[in-house]
């Protein structure tokens, strides 16, 4: 999957939830990705360069996939 597109989507979710305060925004972003993203999208996001994500989205990804080795995030 197009990583830039996945990052854009994750950041956009985080931005829209940010007004709830960091802790709640991180939890809600993580939950949103869990509920609505297809496995290859999740895998692509988790395996990508997390530094490129906004802080809330990055924290959400950390929470969902604390230790996923990058090569496991192969597309599909």
């Amino acid at each position: 999957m197009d990583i830039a597109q996945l990052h854009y989507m994750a950041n956009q979710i985080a931005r829209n939830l940010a007004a709830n305060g960091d802790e709640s925004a991180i939890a809600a972003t993580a939950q949103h990705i869990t509920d609505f993203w297809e496995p290859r999208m999740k895998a692509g996001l988790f395996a990508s360069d997390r530094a490129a994500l906004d802080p809330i989205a990055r924290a959400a990804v950390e929470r969902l996939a604390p230790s996923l080795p990058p090569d496991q995030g192969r597309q599909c």
Partner: protein
Amino acid sequence: MGYERQPDFGTPEVSSATTVTLAIDGREVSVPLGTTVMRAAALSGGSIPKLCASDNLAQFGSCRLCLVEVDGMRGTPASCTTPVAEGMVVHTQTPRLQKLRKGVMELYISDHPLDCLTCSANNDCELQDQAAAVGLRDVRYGYSGESHLGLAADTSNPYFDFDPSKCIACSRCVRACDEVQGTFALTMDGRGFASQISAGQAGDDFMASDCVSCGACVQACPTATLQEKAVKEIGRPERSVITTCAYCGVGCTFRAEMRGEQVVRMVPWKDGKANHGHSCVKGRFAWGYANHQDRIRSPMIRETIDQPWREVSWDVALTFTADRLTAIKTQYGARALGGITSSRCTNEETFLVQKLVRAGFGSNNVDTCARVCHSPTGYGLKTTFGTSAGTQDFDSVDHSDVILVIGANPTDAHPVFASRMKRRLRADAKNGGAKLIVIDPRRIDLVLSPHVEAAYHLPLQPGTNVAVLTAMAHVIVTEGLTDEAFIRDRCDWDEYQDWARFVSDDRHSPEILEAVTRVSASDLRGAARLFATGGNGAIYYGLGVTEHSQGSSTVMAIANLAMATGNVGRPGVGVNPLRGQNNVQGACDMGSFPHELSGYRHISDDSARALFEADWQVALDPEPGLRIPNMLDAALDGSFRALYVQGEDILQSDPNTHHVAAGLKAMECVIVHDLFLNETADYAHVFLPGSTFLEKTGTFTNAERRIQMVRKVMEPANGPDGGGMEDWQVTQALANAMGLDWNYANSGEIMDEIARLTPSFAGVSHARLDQAGSLQWPVDAAHPDGSPIMHVDGFVRGPNDKRGGKFVVTDYVPTDEKTGPRYPLLLTTGRILSQYNVGAQTRRTQNTVWHGEDLLEMHPTDAENRGLGDGDWVRLASRTGETTLRLAVTDRVAAGVVYTTFHHPATQANVVTTEFSDWATNCPEYKVTAVQITASNGPTQWQESYASWSAKSRRTAVPADPAE
């Protein structure tokens, strides 16, 4: 059963707690107080002659045919204007009345052509019936006097004619246009004998007038003066079948009046609870596409998309398809396959497609075109209220005091409901008419139309819905206008307080946000106060809310506003999404979204999944599937390879046409199941011909959650030699070709499965619908007869905790689509009355006389700055692409904003729309695109190369082997 018109009781139904009993011709009759003598007589099986009365119009009393005698009353009052009274004794047929009525009829007939035998209304004419009823045998005045005979007929409307020589000046047409439709297009000129009906100004014909061709006047006319052309051509119908319109989410029900297998006319069904006997031009008249020559009647296949199509038998096509799908699944896994359901298809068909994907393909990659229109409604209302649906029935609007319309254009997109709404808005102070607030970048017709004027029109900058709604909430909270008792009783108080604190912040005041929204702060304050304090407040919204990068936030902001003002859970209030296509609600209910099963249960919910797994005898993938845009992305990287598209044209309706085309091109097996070779079919390997709504049985669910039957009136035309199949049969045949062994004998059995697996449909079956006419879900043990209004005793969300209403903080996050020096204008898109969606059907009817092409609306200042004039060809360019179309200069749109529709493939408005989408659901942001407009002298290169590619990809080869 032979053909009969629906009974007409003469005057409208009234409701009253008091019952009055009277005697009519010796029969004792009990009716509600306020009923007319005419209606009471009709209800008790009698029939008083009448010409100017009809039960969908207010009583008028002009023809004097309906006279009766009442004991103790002087003279002969008109029964259509005389209310019943307790103990009244009425005589409707006496020698005196007979004489009077004969005299009246003589006058009418002396000015009427006596060509009954050759008249197209012969045997279906009230004048003829009444002449017979009063026993008219001769006309004393002769027929030679001055008359209206010989006046020229107006045949300008493509669907009906107006022949003034047959007019009896009853003015039913004028009243139907005013009262029922609310367009005020007709007038009665002159008085007495000189009276004449005319459309618009003197010299106008119907086409040139304001007439919107709804047909209410045609239906009201007791003679052949206003009559459908089809009746002239085909003759009088001989039977009728009740069915449901397949166009918009109003869900009007019709009597399909048939002669053999030919539709003569569609007459709105008076007992239809969504439309109460009214309709618009599309449903009543635009059904001719079913027989259009472009209709594909045979399955077709091709190895690659650059080859011509080959017509083949169903067997060959289905085997070819199943083999390809199975090969792809074997090589790339189940997640490489997916399907798209259509909100144009029935619930049963939609349910079956998602079942094929989940149980047959083995993935959850199923989505629906609702993705691109109302997916934010699903998300937003589920989050706040607990169900993904509107809260009210349409009748609720009769009890509204303030109506807030945001991002919707009901008179064009939901015309029959708009007529209802206008009737409520027109009701005068005495009748407590409602006030109107319109929030829309464009001055839609509702803002100012005959006898309707909005109290406030807030012409916001496209893309700032959340900011405007937050500012309204700011006013309501900071000025203490909330309904605290309601909130404490039904919502989570802590969440409310978080929200209230958020909106109260100064940065959300209308004065500060004015810079962003361009809405006058004082108007905004006025509108917010009116909504909060004006009585029952109802919110109606459409795609102008959902098709934004903050579509879901806007839906939740609307829900917040309704909760904060206590406007949920009773008639006259609520949050009401106006659905675009006829079965958007149904498609969402039926589990078309990749993350949820029917009835909005998440695919990861083990108990819900177990129910389906047990019923279907197959294990389901617990992970959500791909949405349409994700499918296209995945196709480009090779991990998604096969797509079954039923009744959808994603190439034309989805944003960024180039991206959609590239995604489709990358796939190995695209199956299009549709009526016509649509734009998506240019990229397909298999074409499975579909059936129209006239050719199948099933159900549609309209915007008020009303489930209604669609009934087959003719055989499907999509198979050689009577081998036609309804769409659900085609899906079943494909499933069986893949080895699934499905055995539904009829669509009713599919509904039984839906009911078995979906709690909110538990009490629904075709038999139950036949008997009840329609049912609004939830239909379950607690609501055996359905639920016209939801959340009555508390929100559905958190049923065990009465305080289920959830306030959600919705922060305004500007879209990333921004204007700048290169693209200084904002494009927003919409639809118009006579065309429907991508226009596949309506473009193939005579509705094109009203909308032959898509036009670009631009404010005079912007046009002048660019040296452009009305009718000029212009180039419309965005970061994504460009197209050309012609310009309409109008101040309906604000400076800085341009507007167009997307009904015609030649325009390809979606070549310019971007891929930005709603943060929560990926619903595309159709309503905001930064563009530049410049002069042009014709179609762009893309349009031309597209046209030639399109012609090439639609070639059909002569069948090589006729035995196939």
